[in-house]
């Protein structure tokens, strides 16, 4: 019964989405107030219907209803409840439902927080989001139905993939989807502006907080995925340039460019066409990512079970949505108009350079990901493009962008001069170069990449510190008052930029100075790494809810003083008969000590890999700082609608500092 209710709710949602997608947009063109007014209630009704469908599927999982094919494929009676719920998005059909739910969440949020928008624009935005919803609902109802019945019902389920039975599964996909799908709002704003012909700084101001919020979620989602891979896969890696990792990283890169571009369009009215194109591209890359994971076109550790019909559907959807929006762009962009003039050296040009660099980086990642497909399709052979390629290409591409992060914020709008900038940055430059040279020598190992990474990280630290110092000094006010006199938006930028420096420092140090050993350990044996002593105290056999494990005990000491105990495990999940490792990790600010069990050898001994990962936690902490900076920026006073004493007239724009 419940699955049928869910199925029916999806059908109703499709009808509502069609109404939401078609009438408001046509109504906006014709000035039909009734049709435009359909958008908000339709958006809210759709949210309720999709939410009902989602709850029905979750209920089927919670009550172990194996008469639903999807539940039988992804669950099991011994699976703990939290993973049974997370299993809702563990497979293709359910994750599509998650997509639809999250899209409806963003849509309903826009429908509530859009009172200050002109009604035509609001109608178009909700209409575009409705059309995207139509695509996903149609996809589910035609070739990917999560509520399909299994007759006769299975006795028990095939279990969720053991790799996914982890808190990371509860957290990472929803966060990631909130980000991915959130870029649909910026996309809808861009299409609405192209359709209506009103592309101005007001449009940019309205669009910006939505874009930043989606970016914040995507940052957290990617960070969560990376951290999860780190402790779950057992080999200490945290980024593999896998096709689907790239599929989430490309929207992030373009989204970052978009945020910066919106800043310029809001303040100076420039870059309008470019900003619109970025908004279209960011969401297009999200959709492309959806295609890549589900079509079987690329192999990936994340790929869902593939079916050529599904791939074809999504491809057709891509052509409609992306092709359509790019066609609209080609038609309307030349009419968009230019905006303020600015010099060759100015804050605008630095931000534009940042955009170009991020765009080139995103294109390169896309290129590397799709290149094996290009060659295969042309019959030119089969190659693999993996981490060695991306590591070699990506770092040099991003280096100029990181360098510009120090220059952009202090450059003046409209016109700046290079000699003046160089003068103001000379101390920061000196400190960065010195640190990049001296620090590795102190730590005993120098390579050009380490030098470059350290230089860039400290460059951003030094220039940002200088920026803050210049802003906060020279006033009679107290320090708190001086801090408060700068907007949340500005502080958000400072913290986010510092987050990038922290991230860069973490990546440079961990890749430059990490070490590992692979040893054979019998109980009582001691291994040494990075000045620490790892004593293997043997293995105990334990039983989990749906697995049995050999739990290792390793005592870490330094100079005889005990530091901690870590427990790497080797698990066997019964239903799928799949072995899995859980790493034993001792994290700290300075380094992680990481051990994973290999195979049992003769005589009670085990093969063990032990890793020393200096400053690896800075990688994820940097991402959290970036996300926090973004949140601060969104909570800036000018977005707080309650503080408005009077509503904005329909055509007003404001000059903001």
């Amino acid at each position, binding site marked *: 019964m419940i699955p049928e209710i869910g199925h029916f709710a999806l059908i109703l949602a499709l009808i509502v989405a069609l109404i939401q997608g078609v009438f408001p947009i046509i109504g906006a063109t014709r000035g039909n107030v009734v049709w435009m007014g359909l958008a908000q209630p339709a958006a809210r009704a759709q949210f309720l219907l999709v939410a009902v469908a989602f709850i029905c599927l979750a209920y089927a999982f919670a009550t172990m209803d194996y008469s639903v094919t999807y539940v039988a494929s992804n669950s099991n009676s011994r699976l703990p409840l939290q993973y049974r719920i997370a299993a809702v998005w563990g497979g293709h059909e359910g994750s599509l439902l998650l997509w639809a739910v999250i899209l409806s969440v963003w849509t309903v949020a826009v429908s509530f927080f859009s009172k200050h928008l002109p009604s035509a624009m609001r109608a178009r935005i909700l209409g575009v989001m409705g059309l995207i919803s139509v695509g996903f609902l149609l996809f589910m109802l035609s070739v990917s139905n999560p509520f399909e019945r299994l007759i006769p019902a299975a006795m028990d389920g095939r279990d969720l993939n053991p790799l996914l039975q982890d808190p990371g599964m509860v957290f990472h996909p929803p966060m990631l989807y909130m980000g991915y799908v959130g870029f649909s709002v910026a996309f809808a704003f861009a299409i609405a502006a192209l359709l209506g012909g009103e592309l101005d700084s007001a449009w940019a101001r309205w669009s910006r907080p939505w874009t930043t919020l989606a970016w914040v979620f995507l940052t957290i989602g990617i960070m969560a995925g990376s951290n999860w891979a780190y402790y779950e896969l057992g080999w200490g890696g945290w980024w593999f340039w896998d096709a689907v990792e790239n599929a989430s990283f490309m929207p992030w890169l373009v989204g970052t460019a978009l945020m910066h571009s919106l800043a310029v369009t809001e303040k100076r009215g420039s870059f309008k066409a470019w900003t619109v194109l970025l908004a279209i591209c960011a969401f297009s890359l999200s959709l492309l990512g959806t295609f890549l994971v589900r079509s079987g076109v690329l*192999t990936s550790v994340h790929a869902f079970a593939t079916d050529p019909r599904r791939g074809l559907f999504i491809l057709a959807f891509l052509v409609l949505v992306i*092709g359509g929006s790019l066609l609209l762009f080609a038609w309307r962009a030349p009419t968009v108009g230019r905006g303020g003039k600015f010099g060759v050296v100015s804050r605008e040009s630095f931000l534009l350079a940042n955009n170009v660099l991020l765009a080139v980086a995103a294109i390169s990642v896309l290129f590397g990901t*799709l290149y*094996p497909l290009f060659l295969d399709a042309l019959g030119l052979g089969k190659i693999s493009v993996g981490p060695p390629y991306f590591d070699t290409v990506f770092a040099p591409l991003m280096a100029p962008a990181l360098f510009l992060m120090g220059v952009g914020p202090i450059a003046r709008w409209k016109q700046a001069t290079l000699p003046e900038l160089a003068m103001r940055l000379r101390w920061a430059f000196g400190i960065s170069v010195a640190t990049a040279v001296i620090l590795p020598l102190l730590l005993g190992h120098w390579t050009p990449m380490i030098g470059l990474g350290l230089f860039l990280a400290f460059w951003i630290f030094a220039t940002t510190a200088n920026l803050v110092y210049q802003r906060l000094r020279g006033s009679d006010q107290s320090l708190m008052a001086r801090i408060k006199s700068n907007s949340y938006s500005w502080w958000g930028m400072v913290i986010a930029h510092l987050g990038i420096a922290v991230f860069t420092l973490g990546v440079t140090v961990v890749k430059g100075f990490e070490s590992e050993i692979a040893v054979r350990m019998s109980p009582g044996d001691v291994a040494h790494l990075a000045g620490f002593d790892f004593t293997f105290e043997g293995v105990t056999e334990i039983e989990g809810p749906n697995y049995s494990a050999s739990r290792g005990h390793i005592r870490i000491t330094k100079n005889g003083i005990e530091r901690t105990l870590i427990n790497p495990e080797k698990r066997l999940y019964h239903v799928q008969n799949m072995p899995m490792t859980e790493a034993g990790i001792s994290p700290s600010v300075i380094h992680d000590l990481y051990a994973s069990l290999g195979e049992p050898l003769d005589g009670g001994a085990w093969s063990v890999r032990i890793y020393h990962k200096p400053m690896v936690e800075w990688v994820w902490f940097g991402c959290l700082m970036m996300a926090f900076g973004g949140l601060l920026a969104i909570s800036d006073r000018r977005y707080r609608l309650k503080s408005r004493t009077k509503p904005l007239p329909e055509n007003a724009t404001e000059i903001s500092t």
Partner: protein
Amino acid sequence: MKRALLPLIIFLVVVGFLFVGLNLDPREVPSPLVGKPAPAFSLPRLDNADKMISNKDMLGKVWLFNVWASWCGACRDEHHVLVALSKSGVVPIYGLDYKDTRLDALQWLAERGNPYVATAVDENGRVGIDYGVYGVPETYVIDKAGVIAYKQIGPITEAVLRDKILPLVKRLQIQ
């Protein structure tokens, strides 16, 4: 207008490739050995551990080299096709028993029929590596000069036999 069309054009080109990609298999690894001489091997025979079999024994005739194992599920699927082919006498089939045990292999053939003129035992898989074997079953079509003409990855179906292998074998036998 023209410059603004560029993103659309690039997108359509990418879509074209993605469309072609839907029909390709990214997991399949084509063999670089096609067109090159079959790697030399000299291994003990399955039916008689004291006698050796080598690729040189097959020079002068076209033959199929089928990599199989008793633990391989997909090998069961293709086995009846091989047995029928061996009965037809069109082309001799030699087997490579890959990473298997003698007892299991002999029992497997006894239960399902033996399509092979002879089977070489590759217990540690080294000859498999030389041939670029990465999964089981795989089959090579080798010509009279000992050059690999074709590699079939995965089980041989009736369709593959009819459309690819038999025409090729006939062409090579005329040479």
